[in-house]
C-alpha cells in the first residue's frame, strides 16, 4: 500500500540536511506552510538556501526561520514588504545573501526544473539589471535572456487536502507556487488541512498528482473554514476577529 501520510510535522521534515536548498511555498502568507516551517526550525538544519517568493512576513513562518539565522541565501522576487523587518535587518547587516529573480522567471525556472527543461529563453528582465551578464538572443525579432532551472533538495508546501497517494487539491490563491515547487524538489513535503480517502478526490480536479509528493501531514482545518466551507471571522493574518491573535492559538496558515 502506498501511504505518504505521516503523523507529525516533525516526521514530515525529518532529514533536511545542513546546506540544503529548500523551496517554501506561499505568496506572502497565503499558502505558506507555517507548521512545516516551525518543524524545520525545531529540526535544526542550517546554512540553508531558501527559494520562496517572499522573504517572510512578521515574526512567524519563514521570518522566524530567518530570525534563527538558519538561512545563508534566499532566492526570491519580493523580499521587501511592509512586514519583512526580519529579512530587512539581516540583509542590511550582510547576514543573508539575496538572489533577486523576477516573479515569472522564478516560477518558470522552478517549472523547468520539474519538467526536465535544461534552460529557456525568456523576454522578462531583458535590458535590466536582473539580466545583466546573462546570455541573450534575438528570436523572431524579440530579445530573450537565457534562464536556468532552479531545483531543490526539499520543497515545503501547503495544500487543502491530500489522499494517501499524495494527490493534492489547493484552495483559491493559496495554490500559487505549490504545484510547481512539488515538481522541482527531490523530496516534496506537504501540509494539508485534512486527509481525503483515496478515490474521493475528483481525478479531473487533482492539481498535483501524487507522483510529485513524498510526505503529507494533516495539521487541522484552517481557522476560516468549517468542514470545508468558508466561514470568515478572521483578519488577513488568519487571526480571529475581535479576539486573541491566531499565533496564540497555534499559528496560522
Amino acid at each position: 500500500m502506498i501511504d505518504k501520510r505521516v503523523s507529525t510535522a516533525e516526521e514530515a521534515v525529518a532529514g533536511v540536511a545542513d546546506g540544503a536548498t529548500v523551496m517554501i511555498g506561499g505568496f506572502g502568507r497565503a499558502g505558506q506552510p507555517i507548521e512545516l516551517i516551525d518543524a524545520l526550525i525545531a529540526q535544526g538544519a542550517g546554512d540553508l538556501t531558501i527559494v520562496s517568493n517572499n522573504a517572510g512576513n512578521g515574526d512567524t513562518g519563514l521570518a522566524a526561520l530567518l530570525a534563527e539565522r538558519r538561512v545563508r541565501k534566499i532566492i526570491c522576487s519580493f523580499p521587501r514588504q511592509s512586514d519583512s523587518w526580519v529579512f530587512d535587518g539581516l540583509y542590511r547587516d550582510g547576514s543573508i545573501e539575496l538572489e533577486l529573480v523576477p516573479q515569472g522567471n522564478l516560477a518558470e525556472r522552478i517549472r523547468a526544473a520539474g519538467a526536465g527543461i535544461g534552460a529557456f529563453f525568456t523576454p522578462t528582465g531583458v535590458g535590466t539589471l536582473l539580466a545583466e551578464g546573462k546570455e541573450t538572443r534575438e528570436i523572431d525579432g524579440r530579445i530573450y535572456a537565457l534562464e536556468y532551472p532552479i531545483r531543490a533538495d526539499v520543497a515545503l508546501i501547503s495544500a487543502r487536502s491530500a489522499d494517501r497517494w499524495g494527490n493534492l487539491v489547493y484552495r483559491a490563491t493559496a495554490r500559487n507556487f505549490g504545484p510547481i515547487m512539488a515538481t522541482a524538489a527531490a523530496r516534496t513535503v506537504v501540509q494539508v488541512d485534512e486527509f481525503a480517502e483515496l478515490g474521493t478526490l475528483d481525478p479531473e480536479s487533482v492539481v498535483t498528482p501524487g507522483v510529485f509528493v513524498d510526505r503529507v501531514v494533516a495539521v487541522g482545518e484552517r481557522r476560516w473554514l468549517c468542514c470545508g466551507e468558508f466561514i470568515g471571522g478572521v483578519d488577513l493574518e488568519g487571526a480571529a476577529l475581535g479576539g486573541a491573535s491566531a499565533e496564540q492559538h497555534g499559528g496560522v496558515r
Partner: protein
Amino acid sequence: MNKRISREELAARIAADIPEGSIVNLGIGAPTLVADYLPRDEEIILHTENGMLGMGPAPEAGWVDPDLINAGKQAVTAVPGAAYFHHADSFGMMRGGHLDVCVLGAFQVAENGDLANWSTGAPGAIPAVGGAMDLAIGAKAVFVMTDLLTKQGESKLVAVCTYPLTGVGCVSRVYTDHAVFDVTADGFAVRDLFGDNTVTELRTITGLDLIDATASVAAGGRP
C-alpha cells in the same frame, strides 16, 4: 488655474479607456483604484498574477479570506466565472501576451517606452521586483498611471531613464495627472490635456519635444 486632476479622476479616466471584455491586470498601489471605476454594467475580467482570473472587490467586513488575496496581498473576492491557477500558468498567461491591458505605476518613462518602476537604485535600498518586469512585457497594452512630476518637481517623463529599467520599450500610454501621453515611434504624443494645461506648458515642464496629438484624438483618430 487647474493643472491637475485627482488620483480618483485619473483612475476613472483610465477605466473609461478599457473596453468591455478586456482581461486586465492592475498593478499594486494607485492602479488598483481603477477597479472602482470600471463600469458595473460591463464585464471586464481582472487578473491577479498570484493565480486568478475573475478577481472581485474587497470582501465585506468579517469575510476576509486569507487564501484569497491579490498581488498586493490585500483581501479580495472571486466573481462568478473566476478560475484559479498556479504561478507558472499565471505568468505564462502574461508572458504569452494573453492580457489585454495592464496598468502600472512608474518612477520614470522614457520617450522610447522604457519603464523604470522597481528601483531607484538608491544605495542601501533593499531591492524587490516581484512581478513588475513580467507585467511590463506581458500585456498587449501597458498603461502607466502616475503623477507627471515627482515630489521634487522633476518630470517622470524623460528622454532616457536614469533609474534601473523594469522593461525596455514596453509602455504604450502614460496617464498622468496633467495629461495623457501615447508612446510613439517619434516620442511622446500628448493625447489628452486635463484642466487648462497646454502642450506648450507641458513641453516646458518635461523638457521634451512633445508631439501635439490632441486634435487627431479629438477627431477620433489614433496616433
